[in-house]
């Protein structure tokens, strides 16, 4: 299955890219994060992240679908 992952803030710097298409067997965002973390070695722990799927806040356990867009959201700091 192919999904798109977009990175922001510290995660963008650590991944050294804005976004990527990922071939994955991960069934949910939780597993996808673990797969990406092996490649990129993110400094933020999963417990500090939220996840958005197709531009909506979602759950780490939500099942992923082909062509989904996933964003792991570091702690926000707007304002």
């Amino acid at each position, binding site marked *: 299955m192919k999904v798109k992952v*977009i990175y*922001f*803030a*510290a995660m*963008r710097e650590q991944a050294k890219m804005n976004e990527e298409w990922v071939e994955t067997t991960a069934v949910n965002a939780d597993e996808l994060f673990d797969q990406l973390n092996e490649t990129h070695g993110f400094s*933020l722990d999963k*417990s*500090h*992240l*939220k*996840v*958005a799927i197709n*531009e*909506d*806040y*979602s*759950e*780490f356990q939500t099942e992923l679908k082909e062509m989904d867009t996933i*964003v792991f*959201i*570091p*702690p*926000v*700091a*707007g*304002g």
Partner: protein
Amino acid sequence: MFELTSEKINTEKSIDERAGGVVVFEGLVRNHNLDKGVTSLEYQCYEAMVIKEANLIMNEAKEKFAVYDLKCIHRVGHLAIGEMAVWVYAACVHRQEAFEACQYIIDEVKFRLPIWKKEHYVDGPSDWIACHRCGEYGNKKEKSHTHEHRA
């Protein structure tokens, strides 16, 4: 009603003759955070989701409070000390609703919008600001703690 901009925030507002109370909040870039001297701030955002989530917030505020007019503008990009990062405008019949609506919007904006800021310091490397205590609560939307977010 909500706008993202990479330009200087335009605070021009229309006058609603029914409104007797107007509250405006301006969030500015300050020259320090905790014990560190700050020289500038860099804002980054997930634009598509910011717009969706911000429109939800503005609609919630409209339902909760008797407002005539609500506006919120958030700036992104690289901002210098003293520049305005966020502007909220609430016009209501009386001051109480205007204060509450303005407070609601800025609180939700800071808590929910996928916007990040990197502080550039007088001494030492720049750093992304991250409130890990917010992240601890996963995807729950309700606030689970109260403390000053460094803005």
